């Protein structure tokens, strides 16, 4: 089937299998592999994207469900001119990146958190990010990055 949506401000179309997830379509048909495939069952948050401004796991949304909607992925988070989003800057500076496989999902989730709660408490940060698994960092430097962005 054919689906059409707006991805990172651009109108895109793809020919997909009916059972295909939005994640697979983004990664394998639209050349946007930034959203990651760590569990593909909504447990790890590595595929976090904004669907009409709401944070979702792209692996739990069918491409067909996203038809006609607006999607923002990690690739669209910057200013469109090569400049990074402040959350991306902070992740790089704080040492919040090791293997980096969780990073795209986390930066999308943190950008979403800070848009809703500009100055989150430590507990709010921990709870907001508890759906994003990271196996490398032990989260400490990810929290640093969130606080760094909130303070800037």
């Amino acid at each position: 089937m054919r689906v059409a949506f707006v991805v990172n401000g651009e109108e895109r179309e793809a020919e997909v299998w009916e059972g295909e997830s939005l994640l697979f379509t983004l990664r394998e048909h639209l050349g946007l592999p930034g959203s990651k495939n760590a569990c593909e069952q909504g447990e790890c948050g590595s595929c976090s994207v904004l669907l009409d401004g709401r944070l979702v796991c792209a692996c739990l949304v069918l491409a067909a469900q996203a038809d006609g909607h607006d999607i923002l992925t990690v690739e669209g988070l910057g200013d469109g001119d090569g400049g990074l989003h402040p959350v991306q800057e902070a992740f790089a500076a704080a040492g919040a990146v090791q293997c980096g496989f969780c990073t795209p999902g986390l930066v999308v989730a943190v950008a979403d958190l800070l848009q809703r709660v500009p100055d989150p408490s430590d507990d709010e940060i921990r709870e907001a990010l508890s759906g994003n698994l990271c196996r490398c960092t032990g989260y400490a430097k990810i929290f640093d990055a969130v606080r760094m962005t909130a303070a800037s």
Partner: protein
Amino acid sequence: MSAPVRRLELGRVGESVRRVDAIPKVTGEFAYASDLFAAGMLYGHTVRSPHAAARVKRVDISDARGMPGVHAVLTHKDVPGEKRYGLEFPDQPVLAIDDVRYFGEPVALVAAEHPEQARRAAARIKVDYIPQQPVTDPERARDAVRELTIRHGNPEQAAEITVEGVYELGIQDQAFLGPESGLAVPDGKGGIDIYVATQWLHVDRDQVAPCLGLDPEQVRIHLAGVGGAFGGREDLSMQIHGALLALRTNRPVKMVYSREESFAGHVHRHPAKIWAEHRADREGKLINVRMRILLDGGAYASSSTAVCSNAASFACGPYSVPNALIECTAVFTNNPPCGAMRGFGAVQTCFAAEAQMDKLARVLELDPVEIRLRNALGPGDVLPTGQRIDGSLPVAEVIRRCAALQEPEPEELPRDPIRLPGGAGNTTRGDGVRRGTGFALGFKNICYSEGFDDYCAARVRLYSDAGGELVAEIHSAAAEVGQGVTNVMVQVARTELPEVSDVVLAPHTTAAVGSAGSSSASRQTWMTAGAVRAACLAVRDELERGGGSLAPGEEIDIERVYRHRQTTPLDPKTGQLTGDRAHVAFACAAMKVVVEVDVDLGLTRVVWIGTAQDVGRAMNPQAVFGQIEGGTAQGLGLALMEELQTRDGVITNASFTDYLIPTALDMPPVTAELVEEPEPDAPYGAKGVGEPPTVVSTAAIVAALRNATGLELARVPVRPDDIVGL
């Protein structure tokens, strides 16, 4: 809470340098193995055994071949070369031949145009299995991968105080987030290029080529982005399978494991059962340590022999022990195969040894810190293998620095339930919650051991760019798995070649440089720093000989190999040295933990962790703190939640829904101190830092739980049932 970040600008050895790959990783541009794409590529799929033990009578692929979009269906008959491979022994079939020995063992392969077509075709392959009774109890295993006994002093020596215990550890999974993936591309001349997430490019090549019936030069392994490894990528996953499909179809073939498949698709940490008896005098000095260690290696050998050696070598902990009898056996069963995972045998014995030290302290009414100080190993002391400590090993300093860390005051009630055991579950308001503190020491080797010829190559190409500026291009096959070794290369080049205006990294590939060895055993920083430094110094000599400058178009290109001090095997009968050393160097870490336990519900919360780690010298302090925090989290997982569950050898929790790893809510603040006493033989004095935090944290956390509850808690992960006594 983490340490303040030092300056990022200069990027020489010893400075906190922003990761070379940080920007592409935060923007999503960094190409992991599962992100790769090639025009006309097919998707590969692996058919795996649903049984832990079965005869394979027949594999009928005729229906599958005719399914839509299918380009190839392969069985063991299609493996043109050697039918078996393995890291240490070639004992694992590329595809099952006449039996399967573990759940998830590969049986057949499919390549199709869409992964769903491949899955549907795979479902049409008919395999006639005759299920056998699996061997799942390691105590009833028939065959051993290795048996090692270390006899030291008088193993029968009696002493005034004796404590005993039997300890168990479940199977832990590396649970790296990037699933096993890769892309195999035929070169049109019978050879193959494999882009894959791995830990050691050259050892992959040396296993892949014989199975494909190709010369090593016809197989080029290129490092694709690695989404974490932790030992789980030492053994092959899709490399041979992808190459077989690609060569058969003459199309690029991509394989990406699902999370469920990943749990069966790599080796795990050895589950263990350990019988320990510690004898001491009334002052708390260890007189004799007797330990029997049983490691379940699962169905194939993988690196069990080396894990066995490590478990035995570090069984006593970083303590001076005059007499010991350590018997360690790794056995074959039909459980999931086990091999390398961060800590590599030392995690298991640390858990037992540290519990024993606390038992001794309790009997003698000594402080847990004091008993460890009284027994701390120091330079010149001798290990139970006979090896003398002749490098850096500041055990007492690490203990003191950690013990001096100030733990937080208990937080008053009432408080937000998110900061109570049970968290957002809102299961208590603080009633029934007890606080406890634990202390532990971890101890492990750095680099490969027992005579392994462990070398590391690096190549530096110095050239003058269009503007006449000198550029150093580094070629290394060292696998960047997230630990930051690429930064180490750049820092070394910046330090040794201050005259260059730019340092660039060439792609990691077997095609352009010799082996770097494995990104494991906390060795890669040490070894790669040594190799890159040697190549830089040679380039610099050459530059100076030529007058100190290069004309545009001129270049100097030199490859150098670095080797650490040679080791020799342990004597198979006595476990004693057969040369000067069996291990290259050692590192230790101490950890203090505060927990709160809801003793009514068995729920736990780790409140705070303080640690001091012997790092030799921190090459990149920000990255070192990151390794300590992350390594601690993995040990926390083993202490409290992580265990691969099996029934008759069949994995029953192969998902992140059922196999839990620590989340942002599970990890407490970690206060870390670096103890920098340079290792004399290591380049820049740097020891590897990845493993000690994982070795010590499981033991330290459970010590705190014991302190809070008064329970023995001799098995990890500690379940709520263990705490409430169900």
